[in-house]
Structures are given as C-alpha cells and as structure tokens.
C-alpha cells in the first residue's frame, strides 16, 4: 500500500527567511499525524504546501506516490486556522457549493451535508445564514465544509480552538471516526492533550526546523520518567533522603516526587508501604507538554 501523503525533505524560503527547513513526514491511511510547534514555526506554511497553495523550493510532496496535480484537490479537505465562510450566504448554499467545487454532484452534496448536520445534531441550520450562528457553531459548519466531500486527506489547522468542552469532544469523536474510516489526517494544534489522545506520530517544529519526530510512545520512552505520584493515608518521612530523589512536594493527598533515576521508585514504594498505607502509586511518563517545552522552550531562552 502506498503512503497517502509523504513529504520528503521539503523546503520553503520566503526571501531571506527560511520558513520550512527540510521537513520529512509520512501520514498513513487511518492515521492522525500531529504537527506541533510554537507560533511561526512553519506549520501553516507546511500545510499550505501540502494543499498545493504554494510550491516547495526543494524536496517532494507525494500523494499516493504521485506528485501534486489539480485533480487531487477534490480529495483533500482543509480547515484553516482562521476559518471562514460567507457570512451572508445560507449554510446549505455555500457548503454544497464548496462540495461541488471539489467534484461532488448536487445530490451527493445534499446527502452528505444532511448527514453531517444530523451528525452534529443541528439539522435546523440547513437554512440559516452563517452570521446568524454562534461562533462555535460557525466552526462546526467550517468543519463540515472541510469534510463534506469525503476527502482522503484531511488537513486540520487548530481544529478545536475556541470550542467549548462538549463540542471539543464531539469534534474529537468525529475526527476519530474519520480516521477509522481510513482518512489520513494532518493535524496541528497547541493543545498537547489533544495530540496525546489522537496522534500516533508527531513532528515538533521550531523556527522552521524539525526538532523532534517519531512515534509518540517511542518519544516518550526516550524521555526519562522523572515524576512519581504517591498517595498515602498517613505521613511518610525522609523520602528526600533516598538516593536519586531530587525533590519532594507535599500535595493534598500525598506526595509528588521528582526523581533523577527510575530505579529509586522501588525503594520509595517500599518505604511508603512500611510507614503507611499506599492508596495510589504512579510513575508518571512525561507529558507531551513537558517534552514540548523542553524541546522548544530551551532553544528560545
């Protein structure tokens, strides 16, 4: 099976400034690929290149093994970061228009739009104008506009920003559903918890360069586990005296312990069990947030 989307050492320069420096990545069918980075790191430029809006200066982008062509546009869906629809045009008119521009027939577009409106439980928006909807609902319509034509490759730029938790869950569930149907999704966000939940592979960009790339679980393994969460009924004293413990923080129900060596975990647990009753013991893996700040934050300093 050919990879639906492959970037091979793609580079883009705007005048003197390098916007994207030799990024390579692959998105498989049925995968959500996370593209992370601080503002101005080159995420949007990368996405625009994938969409064929701007052409890379160097490197290749292959879609199912083939280079970009106009016919591919119908197979791609895009939800831009600053999303927009015609404010004064009816939802049905403009979404069907966009669907038809991407090669659907009127009947298919109608059916697909109805399906999606039902999916989001807002069939009554069919005849509403965009300006009549709340911001969150406008965003849902923008999402529908991006997926209405059943794209093989879906590009979501900050898909969940500005939504309330209920709608975030709804959209997340939808994205997962699309993934399970075999769509390749390139996904960018600042919200690390979404990435941890959705993505298998990630790339972290920092000022045009790829700083970290790979399988999310592998990446996490590469980072030492540095934190232990311990909840006990009584007090445990002298934890900070153990070898490999850096800092002990008293929490509401127990302790948060920074360690430099994972081997010390055993002795911490033993000591805790000796002195009190253990309610909860966890060697926490580093959150993506921490990794991100470590990788990107440090360079900025």
């Amino acid at each position, binding site marked *: 099976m050919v990879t639906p989307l492959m970037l091979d050492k793609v580079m883009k*320069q*705007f*005048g003197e400034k390098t916007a994207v420096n030799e990024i390579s990545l692959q998105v498989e069918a049925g995968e959500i690929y996370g593209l992370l980075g601080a503002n101005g790191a080159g995420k949007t430029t990368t996405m*625009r290149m994938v*969409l*064929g*809006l*701007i*052409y890379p*200066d160097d490197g290749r982008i292959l879609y199912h093994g083939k280079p970009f062509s*106009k016919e591919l*546009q119908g197979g*791609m869906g*895009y939800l*831009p970061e*600053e*999303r*927009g*629809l*015609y*404010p*004064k*045009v009816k939802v049905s*008119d403009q979404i069907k*228009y*966009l669907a*038809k*521009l*991407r090669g659907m027939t009127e009947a298919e577009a109608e059916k697909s739009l109805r399906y999606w409106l039902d999916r989001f439980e807002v069939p009554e928006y069919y005849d509403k104008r965009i300006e009549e909807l709340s911001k969150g609902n406008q965003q849902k319509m923008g999402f529908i*506009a*991006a997926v209405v034509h059943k794209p093989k490759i879906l590009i979501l730029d900050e898909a969940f920003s500005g939504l309330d938790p209920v709608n975030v869950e709804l959209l997340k569930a939808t994205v997962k559903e699309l993934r399970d149907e075999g769509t390749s999704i390139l996904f960018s966000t600042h919200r690390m918890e979404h990435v941890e939940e959705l993505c298998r592979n990630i790339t972290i960009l920092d000022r045009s360069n790829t700083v970290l790339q790979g399988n999310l679980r592998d990446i996490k393994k590469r980072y030492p586990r540095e934190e232990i969460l311990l909840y006990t009924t009584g007090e445990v004293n002298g934890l900070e005296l153990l070898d490999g413990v850096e800092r002990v923080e008293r929490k509401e129900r127990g302790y948060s312990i920074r360690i430099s060596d994972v081997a010390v975990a055993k002795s911490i647990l033993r000591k805790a069990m000796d002195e009190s009753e253990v309610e909860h013991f966890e060697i926490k893996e580093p959150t993506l947030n921490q990794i991100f700040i470590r990788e990107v934050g440090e360079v900025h300093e």
Partner: protein
Amino acid sequence: MNKLSNVIGFTFKNKVKTKSFLITTLVLALLLTIGIHVPYFIDKFSGQESGPVSIGLVYSDYPELANSLEKHHGKLAVSGLKLTKYEQTDGQLAKDLESGKIAGYLQFVKANEESFPEVDYISKKDSIKGEVQTELQAALQSVKTEFITKGSLTDAQVAELNAPVAINVQKLSAQDGAEASKDDNDFSPVDFAVMYALIILLFMTIMMTGNMIAAEVTAEKSSRIMEILITSTSPLTQMFGKIIGMFLIGLLQIFIFVGVVVINLSLPYNQESLKGYSLDFSQMDPAVLILGLVYFILGYFLYATLFAAVGSLVSRTEELGQAVMPITMLSLAAFYIGSFSMSAPDSILMKVSNYVPFFSPITMIVRMGIGTPKSWEIIISIVVLLISIYVFGWLSAKIYRTGVLLYGKRPTFKELRKAMKAYKI
C-alpha cells in the same frame, strides 16, 4: 469547465439575492422612469398652470403703436397672452393690477421724436415670464419694423425681413455622392442620444460591477473563505468565474433598464410628448449597435480583471476604496474624453485614444456613432484591446494568485514581486 460554471452560478445567484443589488436596480429603474416622463410632465404643467396671461396695454401717447401691437399679436396662432386695452394709466388700471385681473401692463415711453419709443413692463413682480417675454418681443419687433418702414415695404417684404437666415450644413465626403448623402443621415439625434446612453451605460456598468468584483474578492479574503476556495479550484477559475458571473449580473441589469425604457416609451401619452424630439429608432445603424456591444464586452473584461487583481491585494474592505482609485480615474478619463469629444468625434485626441486600450471602448463607441472611423482603425483598435485583455488578464491572474495569500497591510509592488517569486507563480 464544470467548476467554472459552478463559480459563475454561485456568484450570480448570491448577488441577485442581495438587498443592495435589488435596491440599486430598483432605484435606477425608477430614476429612468422619471427621466423619461420629464417631457410629459413639462407639457402637462406648462399647459395647465398658466392659461393665457392677462396683460394690460396702455394706449395713451401711442395709440397707433398699441393698435399695431394688438394687430400683430392677434395674428399669432397660439398665444399664452391676452392683451387688455386701457386708455390711460388711471385708477382702473391700478385697481385691476391690484386685484390680479392683469399680471402687469405695457406702456410706451417717449424717448426722442423720431425714434421708436421705449417699452416699459410694469408689474408687481421683478421678472416677466420667459414665454410671455419672447412672445411680446416678437410682436413688438414686428411693430417696430412697421414703425420704421412706415408702409414703404409690402407685407411679404416685411415677412422676408423677419425670417431668420438658415444655414444648411452639408458635408463633403471623399466617397461618391450616394455615400455622402447617407453619411449625413448618420448624424441623427438618435445616434447622438444612443451614443450618450451607451457610454453612460458602459461606464456605469464597468464601475458598478467592477467595484462589486473587487469588494467580493476582498470580502472573501477578509472572511478567510479564500483559503478554502483556492484549495478547491484554481484561482484562475475563480477569478474568471467571478468576472463572468458579475458580467451576467451587469447584463441582467442592463436588460432590466432597457426593458423599463422600452415600456415607458411605448406608453401612449409618452409617445405624444416625445414626438417633438424626433427620436426614431429605425434610423439607427445596426452595425454601430453590434460593434458597440463588442466594445462593451471587451471593455468590461479589461477593467474587470484589473478590479479583481486590486481586490485580491486588499485584506480589508475599508481599504478598498483607496485601492481602486487609479482604476476609477482611468475609467473617468475615458468617460470624459468620450463625452467631451462628442462635438468633434474625429479629433486627434479621439484618434489617439482609439489605440489606448483603457479609453478605446468608450471613445470608439462615440466615434462609430457620430464620427467616421475607417474600418482598419476599428480593426487595429479591437486587436490592441484583445492583446491588452490577454496581457492584463494574465498579469491580474498572477497578482490574484499571489494577493489572495497575502494578509496584513496592502503590499507594495516590490513586496508583491517578491511574494510572486517566493510562491513560484
């Protein structure tokens, strides 16, 4: 092709539905209707309001002159004036003037012995009504002629003396006689009126639809739907879809206006009052109309591409007015060259303008209507126009392609060139 028709359809459908379009079309149609009715209203008001004005005529010192005036005035077929005889400027006269029975009175005032006396018109108002004055003047002129010649001329001679000298305008053409006489026919008032209507229509349509195109493009950019659009179709398809869609809007509007004009003109009472203006549409040369249409379409596309390009450069609607200014100026210049040269359609300025692509659509229509352009001039001008449409269309497409992705402040030409290079367009 399918996508193009899609864009055209969407542009057309949404524009037709907007309130602004409905209102402008309605208002303009209403203005047209009123404009066509103006002659009728003038007839109506001037006919009803006045009736003959009553004016007193004082006989006292010059009874023979007063008699002669009454005689000459009596000869007129139509008159808006009734003369009433008074012997003296006495109490009766003052009373009648006061009561409004007469609007004023005429009096001959002695100057010196031999010459014609001065004529005073005395009334309570400062002025004298235009038609009344003309009528009185004509009658008095005859009285004066009679007074001076004192019967030494026959009536026929006097009439001859009073008739104005007519100048018959004839044009010497290089072609043979038959052609020359036909050419003379071309200078009919209909052609003049139609030319004027055509260039106003052309100018208005270009300005209105052009501004709509630019505004739409900017709105799409500022609402960020542009990013979704350009990932769905090529910018070129979008630009031309929009231009053609707007063109259809413009055509629809023109058809509505023409329809309004035709309906209004065919109303029976309007035909009556318009007869005086000798508008006969059968006099019109169909070739002028067809070529006019060709120029209209070409001119529209030339300007429309520019408007689209400018619209794509601007991120916010507020900045648009300033940005389209150069194009507005250009079309205004074309309009004024065309309309001011109507009296001299074959001047050097017009001939040069025929080869300037932005001016030729308007100036050539004028020249075809009331001037005599040679056919090779028309052909060259159309070719120049076609080439420039191609060049500017190509350039605009490039600008559009780049501009729609540039946000923030309006880019300078240098920034635009840089961006074009960067985007590899």
